[in-house]
């Protein structure tokens, strides 16, 4: 499995990471190198094996739908780059 420059650009878009010009080539070569390692997996026949997502057979615990956390919005928003009236400010999204 070999990545093309278009693949790299597509992945960068998915990952929301800016990748410019020369960087595309560098990523292409580094990622292809890593995929060389990963390809070894394809040799194994895993027919009939159940995928394992984590060690224990865990299930999502549920709890009553009541408020348990204190309101610490001010403390949390003090860390944000830009806020106004309790909202986080970002560039306009809707055209």
């Amino acid at each position, binding site marked *: 499995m070999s990545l093309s420059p278009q693949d790299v650009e597509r992945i960068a878009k998915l990952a929301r990471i800016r990748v410019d010009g020369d960087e595309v080539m560098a990523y292409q070569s580094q990622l292809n190198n890593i995929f060389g390692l990963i390809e070894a*997996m394809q040799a194994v026949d895993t027919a009939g094996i159940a995928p394992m997502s984590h060690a*224990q057979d865990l299930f999502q615990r549920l709890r009553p739908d009541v408020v348990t956390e204190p309101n610490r919005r001010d403390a949390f928003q003090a*860390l944000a780059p830009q806020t106004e009236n309790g909202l986080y400010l970002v560039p306009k999204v809707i055209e």
Partner: protein
Amino acid sequence: MNKTIKQLSTLLAEGETSSVELCQDYLTRIQAQNATLNAFISVDADKTLAEARAADALRASSQGSLLTGVPIAHKDIFCTEGWLTTCGSKMLSNFVSPYDAHVIEQFKAAGMPCLGKTNMDEFAMGSSNETSFYGPVRNPWDTERVPGGSSGGSAACVAARMAPAATGTDTGGSIRQPAALCGITGLKPTYGVVSRYGMIAFASSLDQAGPMAQTAEDCGLLLNVMAGFDARDSTSLERPKEDYTRSLNQPLSGMRIGLPREFFGPGLVGDTANAVEAAIAQLRKLGAETVEVDLPNSSLSVAAYYVLAPAEASSNLSRFDGVRYGYRTPEYGDLTDMYEKTRAEGFGSEVKRRIMIGAYVLSHGYYDAYYIQAQKLRRLIANDFAAAFQQCDVILSPTAPSTAFKLGEKTADPVEMYLSDIYTIAVNLAGLPGMSLPCGFDAQGLPIGLQLIGNYFDEARMLGVAHQYQLATDWHMVSPALVGC
């Protein structure tokens, strides 16, 4: 200053020293050595001494517990209220945490002052502590060499006795491998034993926090503080409370130690091979029996890991977008521009590589071929261990393929770096407990680590084997000559 946690606890209980005195001594050593070793990102003597005074007051009013007043350093991956918590990244270089991780809460409840936040590979991605935004950590045994990673700062600070112990995290070997390269003892518990709440996430199905200290006994005492159910971590396990030091003094006669054929093949050579063979001989002398076991799918663990961990990382690191906290790019047009530049500038190259791999293997058309295939391999690897544990009580192997390599030696080729974790990764995939302890030195005086792997929830037995070995040997008591002191 070679005192273990156990010894410090006794000195405090007997009034031979105070927490303030201990913290001042360690802070002096940090001051003297950190410019060279770069093991700490954040140190704050005022905060540390305030906690020390509170601990001394607790002891004075007979409200202290076993470890009250014993100081500890924390890997900068644990959110620590009021402290800069950077995860080794530019992305969080301005993040002063508004809350404590569960692990930090546990240590505060135990009355253990925080000596500082230790350096680490960025977002825990690395095996040499060379990817940190804050610069590499140097191995106290040879400052031209790496301490291992990602918990390199924690390993170096304990090895140099800048702290008697430190917390670490382990996703593919990040406690065990640096412990081996720095000549200390480090343990990764069974997945689910220590809460991940407040521990900045890398790969959620693999990450586990654990203790790094001078001895197995100390690791047991610290695990007693760290372990326990936490409702805020959906993968935290509800189990009866246990004392991880309960089996330390159990003699080893009849203990069956499994030696995986695949880990003792032609790749294991030189001083590492000799030291591990000598350790096996020592354990036999103590009464243990050895048995060959098979882990046939273990050779594919690195491949499977480099699909699963990046996939989970790409999801976990999507929260870093410059909106609510952390770094935001200074100039941007629209929202997409802001996201893309923030993440391109805020993350280092290894982190970006792994996010990209993750995004790819999870994308449409590739999910089954890569991600699902890797999860199936994970099942096979876990099954291999289950079969091996039918024939033995504990598994033994080297921790790392080589001793500490030179700074810059493996940074050109990520895959070469990834292979440093060849003995440790399968343990995370299976979710088993594992630890590393010192078992010798190579011809250049660099430490060699021995890995023990236990069955699920068998930390106490694994620590017992390590402790008996440490009673009969003294590799763990050696510390490099102090640097800059």
